[in-house]
Each structure stands twice: as structure tokens, then as C-alpha cells.
């Protein structure tokens, strides 16, 4: 199965669980959600983002929302898939991770996953990347 493009944004509180589960799917999942976001573009981070081509089987288990832009310039939800938390829970349990089904469902419900380009998705959520100074 080929890769699928996705932009996945999770809350800061959900980032550790999300990282652990992604890493359990294989080496390609290690290192996701390392880019911090906030409304101001300054610490503390409120969200984390990963965006790019990801294994289609992983994206198929994730929540997914499609968005449409109105003539007034606002986003409306066109469709929503809640994700397959049960299958993810089964994989996570098999990998020895301690998370409950309810916890994974909670992460899914609070995440923002779409196929929008990352800066479009961040703009819709009014979030900015936190960029520390370069010395």
C-alpha cells in the first residue's frame, strides 16, 4: 500500500501517547510530533504537528476530517472519520504499551487530522510554529 499525505496535529498532553503509539508501528513512526505549536508562536507549546507522506495503513486508522472553505473565508467540516481506535488499541497492547482504549479514543477525539497542507491547517487552528532563536 502506498504512502498517503496527512497533516496530524495533537495536543501537548496527547503528544507522548501519540509518539509512543506511532513508534510502535515501526521505525518510520519514530520522531513524529516533535514540532511544537502555540497560538502566539512562543513557549509553552499547546500542540505538536507532523505532516508528510505516511504509510497508508497508518493513516487509514487515524481520524480524518475534510474541510471546505466558504465564500466568506471560513472553514466548514465536510466529512469526518473518527478513526479506528479499537485496532490501534489492539496494536498498542500487542506492543506492550499501557494505554487504554478510552485513552486512545480521547487522543483521537482531540486531534486534528486532515489532508490540508500544514500551514493551511495551522492557519485554520490559529496556531504557529515555535521557532527558537538560531545562534
Amino acid at each position, binding site marked *: 500500500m502506498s504512502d498517503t499525505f*496527512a497533516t496530524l496535529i495533537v495536543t501537548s498532553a496527547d503528544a507522548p501517547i501519540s509518539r509512543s503509539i506511532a513508534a510502535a508501528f515501526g521505525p518510520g513512526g519514530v520522531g513524529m510530533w516533535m514540532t511544537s505549536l502555540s497560538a502566539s508562536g512562543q513557549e509553552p507549546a499547546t500542540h505538536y504537528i507532523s505532516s508528510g*507522506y505516511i504509510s497508508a495503513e497508518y493513516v487509514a486508522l487515524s481520524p480524518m476530517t475534510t474541510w471546505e472553505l466558504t465564500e466568506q473565508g471560513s472553514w466548514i467540516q465536510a466529512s469526518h472519520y473518527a478513526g479506528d481506535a479499537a485496532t490501534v488499541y489492539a496494536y498498542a497492547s500487542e506492543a506492550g504499551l499501557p494505554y487504554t482504549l478510552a485513552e486512545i479514543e480521547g487522543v483521537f477525539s482531540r486531534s486534528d487530522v486532515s489532508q490540508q497542507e500544514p500551514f493551511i491547517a495551522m492557519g485554520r487552528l490559529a496556531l504557529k510554529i515555535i521557532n527558537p532563536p538560531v*545562534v
Partner: protein
Amino acid sequence: MLGVDLSLFRMAKSTPASIPASLFAAGEKGVWYDPSDYSTLFQNAAGTTPVTAVEQPVGKILDKSGRGNHATQTTEGSRPILSARVNLLTHSNGFTSASWAKGANATLTATAAVSPDGSNNAWLYQSTGASDFLYNTASSLAAPFLATIHLKYGGTGRWFLVRAYGTGGANVWVDLLNGSVGTASAYSGVGTIITPTLTPLGDGWHRLQLGCSAGATHQYFQINSVTADLSTVQSNGSAYIYGADLRVTNDGIGVPAYQRIAAATDYDTTGFPLYLRFDGTDDSLATGSIDFTGTDKMTVSLGFRRLDTTLDNFVVLELSTTMGTNPGAFNHYMYGSLIRYGLGGTGTDVYDASPYSPPITLVSVCSYDFAGATIAQEVMPRLNAAVPTLNAASAGPAGAGNFGNYPIYIGARASASNWFKGRIYSLIVRGAASSGGEIAAIEDYVNSKTEAY
């Protein structure tokens, strides 16, 4: 090198085939990455799945210097994408696709005529009354932008109004029967107009180009038939239409005026330079540690396009995890409208080249030399084959010593932050100084991959 007239070296430059390979002929350490060479690109970090087409991720790019310093990215979603995309329209010739809309009194007939490329893919657009517009619905782009469309007289109603507009924009009328174009005006009086051109292509076809250099945001690319006095936007006009293109005006010097786009992964790449696209959120590549401890000199060459819009702290390239704290390191990063060149030793040099606000494509060749006594002798950048305006943000000197034994990070700081949003067309890091002739040849080579000037 500073102050030398490199134009003399261009007259007697090395043959193209010898650069960049000759830069490593004496065993110099370094890397040479060429995104235009498919044989060096792999979708996964293990290097077992080749890149076979544009819009595929690059998890590994092979080092052509012969030193084996391949760059990889193990995280799936953090891999840059191979691309050659310039035309930003979703469908360039799909006028009945979802990204185009037409009025109730506009009809479109496919495969109606031979198009300028010799295929039978031109459409016949016909107006039968009011509400005869045809426009693109998915093309938001701030100035500077250039819109292109191919038109041919369709037999009735010779006058057409073409608009590239949104918040401001450009309007122009064309007479397809005698092949003339009027004076463009700013839509709603907003926008700095680029003088439109109507270029004859033979067989009655014309290429119309219009746009704005500043002060407008493109949202719609629209045509209407119009009456001869240009007062009424509806007529019995008809025109053959083909091939629409919307791009940033400075995206590629000398590349074809039209790029066919059938789908996000199906578009024309001939004549368009290939590049690695970094998304500005989490994309990067990195090498293993490269032992540069045997040299105090470095030549770093990069063809890139910056697309960051928030204008602050984006790392394009860095030797070591943090130049400012690891002696024997360098970096290139963006800061506002500045391109910053850093060199870290016992002290730190930071040299600013300005102004280079995005979007902009540049060929950068920077010579570093720890043996120099001042920043001007330690950090010697050139941008688009010229010495830029330079200001020392941190005057150093960086101090004597050699470079270190560190990885090279591409597109981010330590693959962990300060993500670069833009494109990389070519990258060469040579652990040695380069002569004036070599620098001129490097600039020519990198620009052949980048089309920056």
C-alpha cells in the same frame, strides 16, 4: 577570492563535466547531492525503494562525491518531497474539472482543435449570453504572480476580457482576431500591474500573460467574451482555449512559460528543475558524522528557494547540532530578509547578506577559512554570482583551528527545530578552499540545477 573579478574565470571555466566531481579528486571530504539524479534518490531511509517520479518522499539521497556521506530521514512524515512544480493551478487544461467554474451561458467543448503543443487538447469556449464567465476557483496567490493562458479566435466575437484578480489584480482585454492586447488596469484599482504580453505562437494561437508585481492577491483567473466597446461582459464570442498557468513571477529563470498540470502527481517536468521540497514543519535530512578535522577551509554551495513567510530563524544547512556551541562548525539560516552565514570556532562569526525576502531563488557559494584574521577573511559568501551587501551581526573572529567531526543537517537545526520552508536544488560541501575559477564553475553548475539567474 574577495575582490577578484570572477568573470575572467567564466571565460576559461572548467568543462561542465569536471565540476563538481573534480572538487573531490584529491580526496577532499564532503558531500554532493543532486536531486535531479533519480539514481541517487530513495523513498525510504534504508535505500531499498527508489524514487521513480515527482511528488514522492525522499528518505535517502546518495552522496555523489564518492565519500559515502549519504543523507537520510527515518521518520516517514519528515521526508522532503521530490518536485518540479511551478504552475500552482490544480488543473491547467481541465476546464470542466472541479477547480474551474463557468457561468450558465458558457459552453465548453473538449478536443475542439489542435493546441499549441500539437496535441488535440484545445477547448472551444462559447458565450451565449450574460453570465458567460469561466474562471479558476482554487488559485490563491499573493503578488508577485503571473497568469498565463493560450487563446485562439473561435470564429465569433473577437474581444475577450481576461482577469487575474482577487483582492486587486489585473484586467486586460484582447482582440483575438488581430492579435492585439489592450492596456491592463488594476482590478478595483488595487495592485501594481505587470505589463501584459500577447505572444503569437503560430496557427492563430496566442499566449497571454498578465499579473501583478505587488499589492494584490490572486484568487480567480477569469475570461469573458466582451463587446467591442468593452462595455458589456457578454457577447456571442467564442475562443479556443488551452493551457492555463499561475506562478510566482520569479520562480525559475528561463523555464517554460507553461507547465501542464493534470493532477498533483501528474505534471510536465521537462525544462523545470527538480528540487527537494521542505514543508517548514518537520522535514529534514542528515548525514552521519563527517570528519572535517583535517581542514580549516570549506566551500559550501547551495541552490535553494526560500518560501518561509514568517521571516524568522529557519535553518537551511548546519554542520553540527548547533554552530554557536560546537567549535569547527558552520550554518546558513534565514533571519527576516537576511541570509545569515555563521562560522563557529573559539569565537563566532555571523555575516548577514541582505535583502533577500521570500519568495526568492538563490545560488549561494560561501567560502569559509578559519585562518582568516577578520570576519571578511573568514566568511566569504556569494549570492547569484556576486558579492552581496554584507553586515557583520557578530564580528568574531571565529579563531584559528580546523572544522570538526559532525553530521550535516539539511533543512532544520539538528533535525529537531527551526524548519526550513522552501526548496533545495543542489548542495555541495567541499572540505577545502576553491579557486576563483572553481567557484565560477560551481556557480554555473549550481545555477544550471536551480535557474536562479
